[in-house]
Protein backbone atom coordinates (compact mmCIF):
# COMPACT_ATOMS: atom_id res chain seq x y z
CA UNK A 1 0.00 0.00 0.00
CA UNK A 2 2.75 2.46 0.98
CA UNK A 3 4.51 1.66 -2.25
CA UNK A 4 1.38 2.30 -4.25
CA UNK A 5 0.87 5.70 -2.64
CA UNK A 6 4.52 6.53 -3.19
CA UNK A 7 4.32 5.58 -6.85
CA UNK A 8 1.24 7.69 -7.40
CA UNK A 9 2.81 10.69 -5.70
CA UNK A 10 5.88 10.35 -7.94
CA UNK A 11 3.64 10.17 -11.00
CA UNK A 12 1.94 13.36 -9.90
CA UNK A 13 5.12 15.40 -10.25
CA UNK A 14 5.34 15.36 -14.07
CA UNK A 15 1.57 15.92 -14.25
CA UNK A 16 1.82 19.03 -12.13
CA UNK A 17 4.78 20.22 -14.14
CA UNK A 18 2.81 19.91 -17.38
CA UNK A 19 -0.22 21.67 -15.90
CA UNK A 20 1.86 24.56 -14.59
CA UNK A 21 3.85 24.96 -17.80
CA UNK A 22 0.78 24.74 -20.04
CA UNK A 23 -1.06 27.34 -17.98
CA UNK A 24 1.96 29.59 -17.79
CA UNK A 25 2.48 29.78 -21.54
CA UNK A 26 -1.23 29.79 -22.33
CA UNK A 27 -1.88 32.97 -20.39
CA UNK A 28 1.32 34.60 -21.62
CA UNK A 29 0.64 34.08 -25.29
CA UNK A 30 -2.83 35.49 -24.94
CA UNK A 31 -3.52 39.03 -26.05
CA UNK A 32 -3.73 41.65 -23.31
CA UNK A 33 -1.92 41.81 -20.02
CA UNK A 34 -2.65 42.66 -16.42
CA UNK A 35 -1.92 46.36 -16.96
CA UNK A 36 -3.28 46.86 -20.44
CA UNK A 37 -6.89 47.31 -19.39
CA UNK A 38 -6.38 50.15 -16.98
CA UNK A 39 -7.44 53.39 -18.50
CA UNK A 40 -4.93 56.18 -18.88
CA UNK A 41 -1.87 54.34 -17.69
CA UNK A 42 1.09 56.31 -18.98
CA UNK A 43 3.63 54.24 -20.92
CA UNK A 44 6.29 55.09 -18.33
CA UNK A 45 4.10 53.92 -15.48
CA UNK A 46 3.26 50.76 -17.35
CA UNK A 47 6.93 50.10 -17.94
CA UNK A 48 7.70 50.75 -14.30
CA UNK A 49 4.94 48.37 -13.23
CA UNK A 50 6.19 45.71 -15.58
CA UNK A 51 9.71 46.18 -14.29
CA UNK A 52 8.49 45.91 -10.73
CA UNK A 53 6.90 42.54 -11.45
CA UNK A 54 9.79 41.46 -13.72
CA UNK A 55 7.43 41.26 -16.70
CA UNK A 56 10.07 42.98 -18.86
CA UNK A 57 12.44 40.04 -18.68
CA UNK A 58 12.55 37.32 -21.33
CA UNK A 59 9.69 34.87 -20.99
CA UNK A 60 11.89 31.88 -20.31
CA UNK A 61 13.67 33.70 -17.48
CA UNK A 62 10.29 34.56 -15.96
CA UNK A 63 9.26 30.95 -16.32
CA UNK A 64 12.40 29.73 -14.59
CA UNK A 65 11.99 32.24 -11.79
CA UNK A 66 8.37 31.27 -11.33
CA UNK A 67 9.19 27.57 -11.07
CA UNK A 68 11.99 28.37 -8.63
CA UNK A 69 9.68 30.37 -6.40
CA UNK A 70 7.06 27.67 -6.64
CA UNK A 71 9.50 25.11 -5.25
CA UNK A 72 9.62 27.25 -2.13
CA UNK A 73 5.82 27.30 -2.03
CA UNK A 74 5.73 30.92 -3.16
CA UNK A 75 3.01 31.74 -5.72
CA UNK A 76 4.27 35.32 -6.17
CA UNK A 77 2.51 38.67 -5.82
CA UNK A 78 -0.93 39.34 -7.24
CA UNK A 79 -1.04 41.89 -10.05
CA UNK A 80 -4.53 43.11 -9.37
CA UNK A 81 -4.51 43.27 -5.62
CA UNK A 82 -1.36 45.31 -5.04
CA UNK A 83 0.60 44.46 -1.96
CA UNK A 84 -1.07 41.09 -1.46
CA UNK A 85 0.49 37.80 -2.38
CA UNK A 86 -1.34 35.04 -4.20
CA UNK A 87 -0.70 32.81 -1.18
CA UNK A 88 -2.65 35.22 1.01
CA UNK A 89 -5.50 35.46 -1.48
CA UNK A 90 -5.76 31.70 -1.82
CA UNK A 91 -5.65 31.32 1.93
CA UNK A 92 -8.50 33.81 2.27
CA UNK A 93 -10.66 32.22 -0.41
CA UNK A 94 -10.03 28.56 0.23
CA UNK A 95 -11.89 28.07 3.54
CA UNK A 96 -15.23 29.06 2.04
CA UNK A 97 -14.71 26.86 -1.03
CA UNK A 98 -13.55 23.91 1.05
CA UNK A 99 -16.46 24.23 3.45
CA UNK A 100 -18.94 24.51 0.60
CA UNK A 101 -17.38 21.51 -1.13
CA UNK A 102 -17.46 19.47 2.05
CA UNK A 103 -21.12 20.19 2.76
CA UNK A 104 -22.02 19.50 -0.84
CA UNK A 105 -20.16 16.21 -0.68
CA UNK A 106 -22.03 15.31 2.51
CA UNK A 107 -25.34 16.18 0.85
CA UNK A 108 -24.35 14.06 -2.14
CA UNK A 109 -23.25 11.03 -0.13
CA UNK A 110 -26.03 11.01 2.47
CA UNK A 111 -28.95 11.81 0.17
CA UNK A 112 -27.55 9.83 -2.72
CA UNK A 113 -26.79 6.66 -0.80
CA UNK A 114 -30.11 6.73 1.03
CA UNK A 115 -31.98 7.09 -2.26
CA UNK A 116 -29.86 4.45 -3.98
CA UNK A 117 -30.31 1.96 -1.14
CA UNK A 118 -34.05 2.53 -1.07
CA UNK A 119 -34.20 1.86 -4.79
CA UNK A 120 -31.95 -1.19 -4.75
CA UNK A 121 -33.83 -2.94 -1.95
CA UNK A 122 -37.14 -2.83 -3.81
CA UNK A 123 -36.21 -2.76 -7.49
CA UNK A 124 -38.94 -2.09 -10.06
CA UNK A 125 -41.46 -0.77 -7.55
CA UNK A 126 -42.45 2.80 -6.83
CA UNK A 127 -39.74 2.88 -4.15
CA UNK A 128 -37.27 2.39 -6.97
CA UNK A 129 -38.87 4.63 -9.58
CA UNK A 130 -39.51 7.62 -7.34
CA UNK A 131 -35.94 8.19 -6.10
CA UNK A 132 -34.51 7.31 -9.50
CA UNK A 133 -36.67 9.83 -11.35
CA UNK A 134 -35.67 12.42 -8.77
CA UNK A 135 -32.06 11.49 -9.49
CA UNK A 136 -32.64 11.94 -13.21
CA UNK A 137 -34.08 15.38 -12.49
CA UNK A 138 -31.03 16.18 -10.41
CA UNK A 139 -28.75 15.25 -13.30
CA UNK A 140 -30.73 17.20 -15.89
CA UNK A 141 -31.16 20.30 -13.78
CA UNK A 142 -27.97 22.33 -14.09
CA UNK A 143 -26.64 24.10 -10.98
CA UNK A 144 -26.94 27.41 -12.76
CA UNK A 145 -30.69 26.86 -12.91
CA UNK A 146 -31.24 24.96 -9.67
CA UNK A 147 -29.47 27.61 -7.59
CA UNK A 148 -31.57 30.55 -8.77
CA UNK A 149 -34.76 28.48 -8.60
CA UNK A 150 -34.08 27.46 -4.99
CA UNK A 151 -33.34 31.09 -4.16
CA UNK A 152 -36.54 32.20 -5.85
CA UNK A 153 -38.77 29.67 -4.12
CA UNK A 154 -37.23 29.27 -0.65
CA UNK A 155 -35.43 32.58 -0.35
CA UNK A 156 -37.71 35.11 -2.00
CA UNK A 157 -41.21 33.63 -2.12
CA UNK A 158 -41.27 31.57 1.06
CA UNK A 159 -38.56 33.56 2.87
CA UNK A 160 -37.35 30.49 4.76
CA UNK A 161 -33.62 30.94 4.21
CA UNK A 162 -31.26 33.81 3.34
CA UNK A 163 -30.62 34.25 -0.38
CA UNK A 164 -26.90 34.96 -0.37
CA UNK A 165 -23.77 35.33 1.66
CA UNK A 166 -21.60 32.87 3.50
CA UNK A 167 -21.48 32.71 7.26
CA UNK A 168 -23.09 36.14 7.72
CA UNK A 169 -26.58 35.05 8.71
CA UNK A 170 -27.69 31.75 10.21
CA UNK A 171 -28.79 29.31 7.53
CA UNK A 172 -27.18 31.01 4.55
CA UNK A 173 -25.05 27.93 3.90
CA UNK A 174 -28.03 25.66 3.30
CA UNK A 175 -29.01 26.63 -0.24
CA UNK A 176 -25.49 26.74 -1.73
CA UNK A 177 -24.64 23.33 -0.28
CA UNK A 178 -27.87 21.80 -1.54
CA UNK A 179 -27.45 23.37 -4.97
CA UNK A 180 -23.92 22.15 -5.42
CA UNK A 181 -24.58 18.72 -3.93
CA UNK A 182 -27.79 17.92 -5.81
CA UNK A 183 -26.31 16.72 -9.10
CA UNK A 184 -23.72 14.60 -7.29
CA UNK A 185 -26.37 13.14 -5.00
CA UNK A 186 -28.10 12.01 -8.16
CA UNK A 187 -24.99 10.29 -9.52
CA UNK A 188 -24.28 8.71 -6.14
CA UNK A 189 -27.86 7.39 -6.03
CA UNK A 190 -27.48 5.74 -9.43
CA UNK A 191 -24.09 4.28 -8.55
CA UNK A 192 -25.32 2.97 -5.20
CA UNK A 193 -28.34 1.37 -6.82
CA UNK A 194 -26.22 -0.28 -9.50
CA UNK A 195 -23.54 -1.44 -7.08
CA UNK A 196 -26.03 -2.79 -4.55
CA UNK A 197 -28.08 -4.65 -7.14
CA UNK A 198 -24.97 -6.35 -8.41
CA UNK A 199 -23.75 -7.31 -4.93
CA UNK A 200 -27.16 -8.47 -3.71
CA UNK A 201 -27.31 -11.08 -6.46
CA UNK A 202 -24.04 -12.69 -5.39
CA UNK A 203 -23.49 -15.99 -3.66
CA UNK A 204 -22.07 -14.70 -0.42
CA UNK A 205 -25.23 -12.71 0.19
CA UNK A 206 -27.27 -15.87 -0.28
CA UNK A 207 -24.93 -17.60 2.15
CA UNK A 208 -25.37 -14.82 4.69
CA UNK A 209 -29.14 -15.05 4.39
CA UNK A 210 -29.04 -18.85 4.56
CA UNK A 211 -27.10 -18.60 7.81
CA UNK A 212 -30.16 -16.85 9.15
CA UNK A 213 -28.56 -13.45 9.66
CA UNK A 214 -31.05 -10.65 10.10
CA UNK A 215 -31.67 -8.69 6.89
CA UNK A 216 -30.28 -5.55 8.52
CA UNK A 217 -26.90 -7.21 9.04
CA UNK A 218 -26.90 -8.70 5.56
CA UNK A 219 -27.54 -5.33 3.95
CA UNK A 220 -25.42 -3.05 6.05
CA UNK A 221 -22.54 -5.31 6.95
CA UNK A 222 -22.17 -7.64 4.01
CA UNK A 223 -23.70 -6.01 0.99
CA UNK A 224 -23.03 -2.33 1.57
CA UNK A 225 -19.30 -2.81 1.83
CA UNK A 226 -19.09 -4.13 -1.71
CA UNK A 227 -21.93 -2.04 -3.03
CA UNK A 228 -20.38 1.30 -2.20
CA UNK A 229 -17.11 0.70 -4.04
CA UNK A 230 -18.34 2.43 -7.22
CA UNK A 231 -19.43 5.37 -5.06
CA UNK A 232 -16.05 5.62 -3.40
CA UNK A 233 -14.20 5.57 -6.72
CA UNK A 234 -16.58 8.26 -7.93
CA UNK A 235 -15.69 10.57 -5.03
CA UNK A 236 -12.34 11.59 -6.50
CA UNK A 237 -13.70 12.83 -9.83
CA UNK A 238 -16.73 14.21 -7.98
CA UNK A 239 -14.47 16.36 -5.89
CA UNK A 240 -12.89 17.82 -9.02
CA UNK A 241 -16.38 18.51 -10.33
CA UNK A 242 -17.43 20.09 -7.06
CA UNK A 243 -14.51 22.47 -7.14
CA UNK A 244 -15.24 23.67 -10.65
CA UNK A 245 -18.99 23.55 -10.08
CA UNK A 246 -18.48 25.86 -7.18
CA UNK A 247 -17.65 28.66 -9.65
CA UNK A 248 -21.30 29.00 -10.51
CA UNK A 249 -22.60 28.48 -7.00
CA UNK A 250 -20.15 31.02 -5.63
CA UNK A 251 -21.29 33.48 -8.28
CA UNK A 252 -25.00 32.92 -7.67
CA UNK A 253 -24.77 33.12 -3.89
CA UNK A 254 -21.97 35.68 -3.74
CA UNK A 255 -19.63 33.50 -1.74
CA UNK A 256 -16.08 34.86 -1.40
CA UNK A 257 -14.37 31.62 -2.42
CA UNK A 258 -11.62 30.44 -4.70
CA UNK A 259 -13.92 30.00 -7.69
CA UNK A 260 -14.82 33.65 -7.80
CA UNK A 261 -11.19 34.62 -7.39
CA UNK A 262 -10.27 32.42 -10.30
CA UNK A 263 -12.94 33.77 -12.64
CA UNK A 264 -12.02 37.34 -11.75
CA UNK A 265 -8.34 36.59 -12.20
CA UNK A 266 -9.04 35.14 -15.63
CA UNK A 267 -10.97 38.26 -16.61
CA UNK A 268 -8.22 40.54 -15.33
CA UNK A 269 -5.27 38.60 -16.76
CA UNK A 270 -3.87 38.39 -13.25
CA UNK A 271 -1.15 35.96 -14.36
CA UNK A 272 0.14 34.87 -10.97
CA UNK A 273 -3.35 34.54 -9.54
CA UNK A 274 -4.49 32.35 -12.48
CA UNK A 275 -1.42 30.17 -12.17
CA UNK A 276 -1.65 30.00 -8.40
CA UNK A 277 -5.29 28.95 -8.26
CA UNK A 278 -4.87 26.45 -11.10
CA UNK A 279 -1.84 24.85 -9.47
CA UNK A 280 -3.50 24.79 -6.08
CA UNK A 281 -6.66 23.16 -7.43
CA UNK A 282 -4.67 20.64 -9.48
CA UNK A 283 -2.72 19.56 -6.39
CA UNK A 284 -5.93 19.21 -4.40
CA UNK A 285 -7.59 17.16 -7.11
CA UNK A 286 -4.63 14.84 -7.54
CA UNK A 287 -4.52 14.25 -3.78
CA UNK A 288 -8.24 13.61 -3.62
CA UNK A 289 -8.13 11.15 -6.50
CA UNK A 290 -5.37 9.29 -4.73
CA UNK A 291 -7.36 9.28 -1.50
CA UNK A 292 -10.46 7.87 -3.17
CA UNK A 293 -8.39 5.15 -4.90
CA UNK A 294 -6.80 4.16 -1.61
CA UNK A 295 -10.17 4.07 0.09
CA UNK A 296 -11.69 1.96 -2.67
CA UNK A 297 -8.76 -0.44 -2.46
CA UNK A 298 -9.12 -0.72 1.29
CA UNK A 299 -12.76 -1.70 0.81
CA UNK A 300 -11.99 -4.29 -1.84
CA UNK A 301 -9.50 -6.98 -0.77
CA UNK A 302 -9.09 -8.20 -4.34
CA UNK A 303 -7.64 -4.87 -5.44
CA UNK A 304 -5.73 -4.42 -2.20
CA UNK A 305 -3.37 -7.28 -2.96
CA UNK A 306 -2.40 -6.04 -6.41
CA UNK A 307 -1.78 -2.44 -5.53
CA UNK A 308 1.88 -2.66 -4.70
CA UNK A 309 2.76 -4.64 -7.82
CA UNK A 310 3.47 -3.21 -11.17
CA UNK A 311 0.84 -3.86 -13.78
Amino acid at each position, binding site marked *: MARFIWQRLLQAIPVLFVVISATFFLVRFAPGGPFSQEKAVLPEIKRALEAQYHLDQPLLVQYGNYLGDLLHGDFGPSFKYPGRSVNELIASGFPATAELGLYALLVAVILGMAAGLMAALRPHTWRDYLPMSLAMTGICMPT*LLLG*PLLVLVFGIWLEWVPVSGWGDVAGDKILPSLTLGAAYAAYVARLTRGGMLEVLSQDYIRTARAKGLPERVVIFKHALRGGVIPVVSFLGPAF*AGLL*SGSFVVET*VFQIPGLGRFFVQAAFNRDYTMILGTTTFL*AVLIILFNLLSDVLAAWLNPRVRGTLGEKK
Partner: protein
Amino acid sequence: MSTTAEAIRYERGTSLWRDAWRRLARNRLAVAGAVILAFIIVACLLAPWISVYGYEEQDLVLGAAPPSAAHWLGTDTLGRDLLTRILYGGRISLMVGLTATSVALLIGVTWGAIAGYFGGRLDAMMMRIVDILYALPFMIFVVLLTVVFGRSILLLFLAIGAVEWLTMARIIRGQVQSLKCQEFVEAAVSLGLSRRAIIFRHIVPNAIGPLIVYTTLTIPAVMLLEAFISFLGLGVQPPMSSWGSLISDGVETMEEYPWLLIYPGITLSLTLFALNFLGDGLRDALDVRSSRD
Protein backbone atom coordinates in the same frame (compact mmCIF):
# COMPACT_ATOMS: atom_id res chain seq x y z
CA MET B 1 -13.97 -5.62 -50.65
CA SER B 2 -16.57 -8.30 -51.28
CA THR B 3 -14.92 -10.67 -48.89
CA THR B 4 -16.76 -12.96 -46.56
CA ALA B 5 -15.85 -10.65 -43.74
CA GLU B 6 -17.91 -7.93 -45.37
CA ALA B 7 -20.85 -10.24 -45.84
CA ILE B 8 -20.81 -11.48 -42.27
CA ARG B 9 -20.66 -8.00 -40.91
CA TYR B 10 -23.57 -6.95 -43.06
CA GLU B 11 -25.81 -9.79 -41.95
CA ARG B 12 -25.03 -9.46 -38.27
CA GLY B 13 -25.40 -5.71 -38.61
CA THR B 14 -28.96 -5.65 -39.89
CA SER B 15 -30.32 -8.07 -37.37
CA LEU B 16 -28.57 -6.26 -34.57
CA TRP B 17 -30.00 -2.94 -35.70
CA ARG B 18 -33.51 -4.25 -36.16
CA ASP B 19 -33.37 -5.77 -32.72
CA ALA B 20 -32.10 -2.58 -31.20
CA TRP B 21 -34.77 -0.55 -32.96
CA ARG B 22 -37.52 -2.76 -31.58
CA ARG B 23 -36.15 -2.52 -28.07
CA LEU B 24 -35.89 1.24 -28.39
CA ALA B 25 -39.43 1.61 -29.69
CA ARG B 26 -40.74 -0.28 -26.67
CA ASN B 27 -38.97 2.06 -24.25
CA ARG B 28 -41.59 4.73 -23.68
CA LEU B 29 -39.29 7.21 -21.98
CA ALA B 30 -36.78 7.03 -24.81
CA VAL B 31 -39.50 7.50 -27.43
CA ALA B 32 -40.92 10.44 -25.49
CA GLY B 33 -37.41 11.88 -25.32
CA ALA B 34 -36.96 11.50 -29.07
CA VAL B 35 -40.30 13.16 -29.78
CA ILE B 36 -39.64 16.12 -27.46
CA LEU B 37 -36.19 16.54 -28.91
CA ALA B 38 -37.49 16.47 -32.48
CA PHE B 39 -40.12 19.04 -31.55
CA ILE B 40 -37.59 21.40 -29.97
CA ILE B 41 -35.13 21.05 -32.84
CA VAL B 42 -37.77 21.68 -35.49
CA ALA B 43 -39.14 24.66 -33.56
CA CYS B 44 -35.68 26.21 -33.28
CA LEU B 45 -34.90 25.60 -36.94
CA LEU B 46 -38.18 27.17 -38.03
CA ALA B 47 -37.79 30.10 -35.62
CA PRO B 48 -37.97 32.83 -38.30
CA TRP B 49 -41.24 31.39 -39.60
CA ILE B 50 -42.81 30.56 -36.25
CA SER B 51 -42.23 33.86 -34.59
CA VAL B 52 -43.74 37.11 -35.84
CA TYR B 53 -41.24 39.16 -33.87
CA GLY B 54 -37.67 39.93 -34.76
CA TYR B 55 -34.97 38.55 -32.64
CA GLU B 56 -33.61 41.94 -31.58
CA GLU B 57 -36.91 43.76 -31.98
CA GLN B 58 -37.37 45.90 -28.91
CA ASP B 59 -40.50 47.45 -27.49
CA LEU B 60 -39.26 49.74 -24.76
CA VAL B 61 -42.73 51.09 -24.05
CA LEU B 62 -43.95 47.60 -23.25
CA GLY B 63 -40.88 46.62 -21.22
CA ALA B 64 -41.03 43.37 -19.31
CA ALA B 65 -44.53 41.98 -19.60
CA PRO B 66 -45.86 38.66 -18.33
CA PRO B 67 -47.09 36.04 -20.81
CA SER B 68 -50.05 37.20 -22.89
CA ALA B 69 -51.82 36.41 -26.14
CA ALA B 70 -49.44 38.62 -28.10
CA HIS B 71 -46.29 37.36 -26.37
CA TRP B 72 -46.86 33.76 -25.36
CA LEU B 73 -43.97 33.60 -22.94
CA GLY B 74 -43.83 37.29 -22.11
CA THR B 75 -41.14 39.83 -22.90
CA ASP B 76 -37.83 40.78 -21.35
CA THR B 77 -36.83 44.15 -19.88
CA LEU B 78 -36.20 45.59 -23.33
CA GLY B 79 -39.57 44.36 -24.55
CA ARG B 80 -38.12 41.59 -26.69
CA ASP B 81 -40.34 38.56 -27.20
CA LEU B 82 -39.08 35.76 -24.95
CA LEU B 83 -40.34 32.89 -27.11
CA THR B 84 -38.44 34.30 -30.08
CA ARG B 85 -35.31 34.68 -28.04
CA ILE B 86 -35.59 31.15 -26.68
CA LEU B 87 -35.99 29.72 -30.18
CA TYR B 88 -33.05 31.67 -31.57
CA GLY B 89 -31.00 30.92 -28.46
CA GLY B 90 -31.80 27.26 -28.98
CA ARG B 91 -30.14 27.42 -32.36
CA ILE B 92 -26.91 28.49 -30.70
CA SER B 93 -27.19 26.01 -27.83
CA LEU B 94 -28.01 23.09 -30.10
CA MET B 95 -25.34 24.10 -32.58
CA VAL B 96 -22.72 24.26 -29.82
CA GLY B 97 -23.94 20.87 -28.62
CA LEU B 98 -23.59 19.27 -32.04
CA THR B 99 -20.37 20.91 -33.15
CA ALA B 100 -18.50 20.44 -29.91
CA THR B 101 -19.65 16.84 -29.74
CA SER B 102 -18.35 16.29 -33.28
CA VAL B 103 -14.98 17.70 -32.26
CA ALA B 104 -14.98 15.42 -29.22
CA LEU B 105 -16.00 12.50 -31.41
CA LEU B 106 -13.22 13.16 -33.89
CA ILE B 107 -10.47 13.42 -31.28
CA GLY B 108 -11.82 10.65 -29.07
CA VAL B 109 -12.33 8.11 -31.84
CA THR B 110 -8.95 8.74 -33.43
CA TRP B 111 -7.13 8.64 -30.10
CA GLY B 112 -8.94 5.58 -28.79
CA ALA B 113 -8.71 3.66 -32.06
CA ILE B 114 -5.00 4.24 -32.44
CA ALA B 115 -4.30 3.32 -28.81
CA GLY B 116 -6.48 0.23 -28.99
CA TYR B 117 -5.18 -1.00 -32.34
CA PHE B 118 -1.48 -0.62 -31.76
CA GLY B 119 -1.53 -1.62 -28.09
CA GLY B 120 1.70 -2.06 -26.18
CA ARG B 121 3.70 0.91 -25.03
CA LEU B 122 1.97 3.40 -27.30
CA ASP B 123 -1.36 2.35 -25.83
CA ALA B 124 -0.06 2.55 -22.28
CA MET B 125 1.30 6.01 -22.90
CA MET B 126 -1.79 7.34 -24.64
CA MET B 127 -4.18 6.01 -22.04
CA ARG B 128 -1.96 7.30 -19.26
CA ILE B 129 -2.40 10.77 -20.78
CA VAL B 130 -6.16 10.25 -20.76
CA ASP B 131 -6.04 9.21 -17.10
CA ILE B 132 -4.06 12.30 -16.25
CA LEU B 133 -6.39 14.62 -18.12
CA TYR B 134 -9.34 12.97 -16.42
CA ALA B 135 -7.99 14.09 -13.09
CA LEU B 136 -7.76 17.75 -14.00
CA PRO B 137 -10.22 20.54 -13.34
CA PHE B 138 -11.42 21.07 -16.86
CA MET B 139 -13.69 23.97 -16.20
CA ILE B 140 -10.57 25.92 -15.38
CA PHE B 141 -9.14 25.28 -18.81
CA VAL B 142 -12.35 26.09 -20.61
CA VAL B 143 -12.68 29.34 -18.68
CA LEU B 144 -9.04 30.13 -19.39
CA LEU B 145 -9.30 29.36 -23.08
CA THR B 146 -12.42 31.44 -23.57
CA VAL B 147 -11.07 34.38 -21.58
CA VAL B 148 -7.66 34.25 -23.13
CA PHE B 149 -8.52 33.84 -26.77
CA GLY B 150 -11.50 36.10 -26.99
CA ARG B 151 -15.12 35.19 -26.85
CA SER B 152 -15.84 33.76 -30.25
CA ILE B 153 -18.41 31.02 -30.46
CA LEU B 154 -16.15 28.97 -32.70
CA LEU B 155 -13.56 28.87 -29.98
CA LEU B 156 -16.17 27.83 -27.49
CA PHE B 157 -16.95 24.82 -29.68
CA LEU B 158 -13.31 23.84 -29.88
CA ALA B 159 -12.59 24.38 -26.21
CA ILE B 160 -15.55 22.32 -25.09
CA GLY B 161 -14.91 19.62 -27.67
CA ALA B 162 -11.30 19.39 -26.61
CA VAL B 163 -12.48 18.71 -23.09
CA GLU B 164 -15.16 16.12 -23.68
CA TRP B 165 -13.31 13.52 -25.74
CA LEU B 166 -11.80 11.49 -22.92
CA THR B 167 -14.58 9.02 -22.21
CA MET B 168 -15.11 8.60 -25.93
CA ALA B 169 -11.48 7.60 -26.33
CA ARG B 170 -11.76 5.03 -23.53
CA ILE B 171 -14.87 3.44 -24.97
CA ILE B 172 -13.49 3.20 -28.48
CA ARG B 173 -10.21 1.77 -27.24
CA GLY B 174 -12.03 -1.03 -25.46
CA GLN B 175 -14.10 -1.80 -28.54
CA VAL B 176 -11.12 -1.76 -30.85
CA GLN B 177 -9.15 -4.05 -28.58
CA SER B 178 -11.82 -6.71 -28.75
CA LEU B 179 -12.54 -6.21 -32.45
CA LYS B 180 -8.99 -6.31 -33.73
CA CYS B 181 -8.60 -10.03 -33.01
CA GLN B 182 -11.61 -11.00 -35.12
CA GLU B 183 -11.38 -12.76 -38.44
CA PHE B 184 -12.57 -9.94 -40.65
CA VAL B 185 -9.70 -7.82 -39.43
CA GLU B 186 -7.26 -10.64 -40.11
CA ALA B 187 -8.76 -10.90 -43.58
CA ALA B 188 -8.27 -7.20 -44.14
CA VAL B 189 -4.67 -7.47 -42.95
CA SER B 190 -3.99 -10.38 -45.27
CA LEU B 191 -5.45 -8.41 -48.15
CA GLY B 192 -2.67 -5.94 -47.54
CA LEU B 193 -4.77 -2.95 -46.56
CA SER B 194 -3.06 -0.04 -44.89
CA ARG B 195 -3.40 0.32 -41.16
CA ARG B 196 -5.39 3.50 -41.60
CA ALA B 197 -7.89 1.76 -43.81
CA ILE B 198 -8.18 -1.14 -41.38
CA ILE B 199 -8.76 1.08 -38.39
CA PHE B 200 -11.15 3.58 -39.90
CA ARG B 201 -12.93 1.50 -42.56
CA HIS B 202 -13.17 -1.86 -40.84
CA ILE B 203 -12.84 -1.48 -37.11
CA VAL B 204 -14.42 1.86 -36.24
CA PRO B 205 -17.69 1.24 -38.13
CA ASN B 206 -18.13 -1.90 -36.05
CA ALA B 207 -17.91 0.10 -32.88
CA ILE B 208 -20.71 2.38 -34.02
CA GLY B 209 -23.22 1.22 -31.40
CA PRO B 210 -21.38 2.47 -28.33
CA LEU B 211 -20.37 5.50 -30.35
CA ILE B 212 -23.97 6.51 -30.99
CA VAL B 213 -24.91 5.93 -27.38
CA TYR B 214 -22.09 7.93 -26.00
CA THR B 215 -22.63 10.71 -28.50
CA THR B 216 -26.22 11.13 -27.32
CA LEU B 217 -24.94 11.35 -23.78
CA THR B 218 -22.15 13.79 -24.64
CA ILE B 219 -24.43 16.34 -26.27
CA PRO B 220 -26.23 17.22 -23.01
CA ALA B 221 -22.92 17.40 -21.15
CA VAL B 222 -21.62 19.80 -23.78
CA MET B 223 -24.75 21.93 -23.74
CA LEU B 224 -24.46 22.15 -19.99
CA LEU B 225 -20.88 23.37 -20.29
CA GLU B 226 -21.92 26.01 -22.80
CA ALA B 227 -24.70 27.18 -20.50
CA PHE B 228 -22.21 27.28 -17.67
CA ILE B 229 -19.77 29.42 -19.63
CA SER B 230 -22.44 31.75 -20.94
CA PHE B 231 -23.76 31.99 -17.40
CA LEU B 232 -20.40 33.26 -16.19
CA GLY B 233 -20.61 35.86 -18.95
CA LEU B 234 -17.85 34.33 -21.04
CA GLY B 235 -19.80 32.67 -23.81
CA VAL B 236 -22.28 34.11 -26.26
CA GLN B 237 -22.29 37.88 -26.28
CA PRO B 238 -25.40 40.11 -26.57
CA PRO B 239 -27.52 40.73 -28.52
CA MET B 240 -27.11 37.07 -29.39
CA SER B 241 -28.39 34.66 -26.81
CA SER B 242 -28.12 31.04 -25.88
CA TRP B 243 -30.15 29.21 -23.27
CA GLY B 244 -27.32 29.69 -20.80
CA SER B 245 -27.16 33.44 -21.32
CA LEU B 246 -30.97 33.75 -21.19
CA ILE B 247 -30.96 31.98 -17.82
CA SER B 248 -28.14 34.21 -16.66
CA ASP B 249 -30.15 37.31 -17.69
CA GLY B 250 -33.23 35.85 -16.07
CA VAL B 251 -31.44 35.40 -12.76
CA GLU B 252 -30.76 39.12 -12.51
CA THR B 253 -34.42 40.03 -12.63
CA MET B 254 -36.00 36.87 -11.26
CA GLU B 255 -37.52 38.66 -8.29
CA GLU B 256 -39.63 40.99 -10.43
CA TYR B 257 -39.97 38.98 -13.64
CA PRO B 258 -39.68 35.28 -12.74
CA TRP B 259 -40.85 34.10 -16.16
CA LEU B 260 -37.58 35.31 -17.68
CA LEU B 261 -35.80 32.66 -15.63
CA ILE B 262 -38.42 29.95 -15.63
CA TYR B 263 -39.15 29.51 -19.36
CA PRO B 264 -35.56 29.34 -20.60
CA GLY B 265 -34.85 27.07 -17.65
CA ILE B 266 -37.68 24.72 -18.56
CA THR B 267 -36.52 24.62 -22.16
CA LEU B 268 -32.94 23.76 -21.24
CA SER B 269 -33.95 21.14 -18.67
CA LEU B 270 -36.48 19.57 -21.00
CA THR B 271 -33.87 19.24 -23.74
CA LEU B 272 -31.34 17.74 -21.35
CA PHE B 273 -34.00 15.35 -20.06
CA ALA B 274 -34.93 14.27 -23.55
CA LEU B 275 -31.33 13.70 -24.56
CA ASN B 276 -30.53 11.75 -21.42
CA PHE B 277 -33.59 9.53 -21.73
CA LEU B 278 -32.88 8.90 -25.38
CA GLY B 279 -29.26 8.12 -24.58
CA ASP B 280 -30.21 5.74 -21.78
CA GLY B 281 -32.77 4.08 -24.03
CA LEU B 282 -30.21 3.65 -26.79
CA ARG B 283 -27.76 2.19 -24.32
CA ASP B 284 -30.28 -0.37 -23.16
CA ALA B 285 -31.31 -1.09 -26.75
CA LEU B 286 -27.77 -1.58 -27.96
CA ASP B 287 -26.73 -3.18 -24.68
CA VAL B 288 -23.64 -1.13 -24.15
CA ARG B 289 -21.83 -0.98 -20.87
CA SER B 290 -20.85 2.61 -20.47
CA SER B 291 -18.01 3.56 -18.22
CA ARG B 292 -20.20 6.31 -16.87
CA ASP B 293 -22.10 4.30 -14.32
